[in-house]
């Protein structure tokens, strides 16, 4: 297999997050417009400066990226729509970076956003995937709670993980979220609160589950000299991977697609896990955080509970993780859940994270995971971002 080319010279800029809301009477179009406007104003750009556009959303129906061009008055020469949920952010950056690298576009705006009406989560599920309609919804599976209950059950049996192990992840993220004014969760969470919470689907309890909410995130992809010329802070793309439907032969998901390409990821970025200053994993449930920590090379398979028990995962800790609170505490704004870690990682290495800034963060790892098509997450991706001057 041919080695992939480097992303040298392409940068990520203008990370913008709309503060999330539990419910919203606005539409996905509104949320996407707000994030795009927010990102452009961070960069001092006008809509007409954007010649590439990609969008991820679950609640945009019947529109797609196509409808949005007319709705928002954009005339891009490169257009994409990425229906990959939690992997959307990493996938958007990969595609946009190549488009800019090859000259198909100069400035790509990557946006994800969803609204959350009272009944929109339930309605969205009815058209999520054919395998889910045929083979998991009939069993009472409304959303992925129960799928993740099964994966968590197997993971705990296989590796002896405990609920406390998962609880520590959630508790640390809540501490981080309290420093993020845009987070939906505002109250502190103790391990005892976590342990005592109502069971949703054994062994998953309330604080293992994300809160569906409305929100949007955006960032821009451009050439480094463009960012420098405009004096926009940026993050460099040191390496990135993507993989879908890996390990289809595994009877139940205990690892994700990262394992297939992880060596190449570190190789491209020319560093090792020890060099990472801040980690943003996809965290719709803590068990998948544990899998990413393992599959991305921080420790061996099944060792994440032990590895993390020796770490402080808060912003000031020795293993800063999901510094904006992640989806578990900031909320899951639909497809924006695939962007939350990425925009935070861009902010961290470009020193724009404000209250959640990890001191001296130069290298960040961000990971995406998405789409419980039937019994497991199908899409996975990861990227290593570096500061302008590491």
């Amino acid at each position, binding site marked *: 297999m041919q080695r992939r080319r480097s992303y040298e010279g392409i940068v990520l800029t203008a990370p913008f997050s709309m503060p999330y809301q539990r419910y919203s009477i606005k539409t996905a179009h509104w949320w996407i417009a707000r994030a795009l406007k927010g990102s452009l104003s961070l960069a001092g750009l006008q809509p007409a400066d954007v010649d590439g556009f990609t969008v991820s959303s679950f609640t945009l129906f019947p529109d797609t990226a196509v409808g949005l061009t007319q709705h928002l008055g954009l005339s891009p020469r490169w257009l994409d729509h990425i229906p990959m949920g939690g992997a959307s952010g990493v996938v958007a950056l990969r595609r946009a970076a190549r488009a800019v690298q090859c000259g198909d576009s100069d400035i790509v705006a990557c946006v994800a956003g969803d609204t959350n009406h009272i009944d929109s*989560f*339930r309605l969205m*599920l*009815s058209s999520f995937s*054919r*395998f889910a*309609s*045929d*083979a*998991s*919804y*009939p*069993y*009472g*599976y*409304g*959303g992925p709670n*129960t*799928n993740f*209950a*099964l*994966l968590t*059950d*197997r993971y705990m*049996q296989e590796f002896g993980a405990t609920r406390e192990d998962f609880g520590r992840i959630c508790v640390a993220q809540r501490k981080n979220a309290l420093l993020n004014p845009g987070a939906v969760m505002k109250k502190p969470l103790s391990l005892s609160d976590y342990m005592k919470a*109502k*069971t*949703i*689907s*054994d*062994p*998953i309890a309330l604080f293992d589950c994300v809160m569906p909410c409305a929100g949007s995130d955006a960032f821009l992809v451009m050439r480094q000299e463009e960012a420098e010329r405009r004096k926009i802070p940026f993050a460099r793309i040191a390496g990135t991977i993507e993989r879908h439907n890996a390990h*289809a032969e595994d*009877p*139940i998901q205990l690892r994700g697609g990262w394992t297939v390409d992880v060596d190449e990821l570190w190789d491209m970025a020319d560093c090792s896990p020890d060099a990472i200053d801040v980690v943003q994993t996809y965290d719709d449930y803590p068990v998948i955080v544990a899998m990413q920590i393992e599959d991305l090379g921080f420790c061996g398979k099944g060792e994440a509970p032990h590895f993390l028990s020796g770490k402080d995962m808060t912003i000031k800790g020795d293993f800063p993780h999901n510094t904006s609170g992640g989806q578990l505490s900031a909320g899951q704004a639909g497809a924006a859940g695939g962007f939350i870690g990425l925009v935070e990682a861009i902010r961290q290495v470009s020193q724009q994270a404000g209250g959640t800034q990890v001191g001296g963060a130069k290298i960040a790892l961000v990971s995406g995971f998405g789409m419980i098509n*039937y*019994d497991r997450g199908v899409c996975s991706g990861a990227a290593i971002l570096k500061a302008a001057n590491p």
Partner: protein
Amino acid sequence: MTNPLLPPPRKDPQKRTVSPTRPPEARSRAALGLSAAAAEGRFALQQCTECGKIQYPPRDACSNCLSTELRWKDTDCLGSILAETRLRTSIKPYFRERTPWRTGTVKLDSGPVIICHLHGDCERNGRVQIINRLDRSGQAVLFALPQKRSLYMEDDPQLRAMTSDPKHRRILITDARNPNTPYIAKSLAAAGASLIFIGESENWRPYPGQEAVAQLDKVEVLPLDVTDTQSVQKLAGAIGGKTDILINNAHFVRPGGVFVRGDTAMAKEEIEVNYFGLMRLAQAFGPAMCTRTADGENAAVAWVNILSVHSLSNNPQYGCYSASNAAARSLSQSLRAEFRTAGLRVMNIYCGPTEDDWYQPLPPPKVSPETVAKNLVEGLRNGLEETYCGDVAKDLFERFRESPHILEREMTLAGEGP
């Protein structure tokens, strides 16, 4: 071990009857193959005809070799539980009302991994046997049973939600005059039915077994003439609100095709009983039964039609009778659609010639009334929609499934002549 289901208390008339909710009905066209198999109680999965890989969830192309030649095939049903959970809450009202609900991941010995309902007696990470059943939306779901049977395993609340088990249910059999009635009533009583109503037409006209029927355990004989709209409505007014299963065994059979009959008089009788009879019963009993499909342990569950297997393909020796049954079968399909939103199941039992007077000239094998009764109870216990009773019916259905057109030619051969 599952605890035996206790007889439900008398309904409190002051309480609101619970509105029926249903599990999700939406399925792809491919997945309807699983529902079609569940209607007959078969566990079948798609198998690739090119590479042999067994597939799940149902799909349109092989995930191994991309062949689009996938066939539904009865498949080995053993497997092992890999993970399990109990839903404590759900955004789906049907499950929300029934939590906790146990489901799990099972690796089948034949290859695929399935998400399925778990019977309460399944052991953690234990070996299981998978059955394919229709749920209350009338669609297939896979259900894991423990390998060892226990005495009251049919009483598992999740399993009972899929079936039409007669236990503790009140059942109407529409025609006391049918020779199979005493056998059906006895079998239902043995299966735990709490009350069996039997409809009797023209009480003044005696019939064999009249006294025997009246003396059966748990039986109440009530006037019912399915050719008389008023009579049907009167009985529905009296017992429609407590009929959990209705078994329509009223039938009128005479030999002969079109020419032999000479006129339409007999055919009218057949249509009156076999077709309009069903329609009258459905119009009178259907609405009340549909409102009671979530009414506790003895909610309304099933509507049973006993039909001739020649409703599938005409037997010219009984040509007009076959036609009346084809009409009844077609009507049952409409009923199935109309009952579906309520979750009331329509089960058709297709019989070959039975051991009664009007089939006297036909050669064996014939269906005994005991077999009809046994099939009926099994069908209810398995929550079936279609069951074929006796060797002739099974043989004819196999031929029908293979090719209705070839079967028609086989049925209508004129013979070599004298």
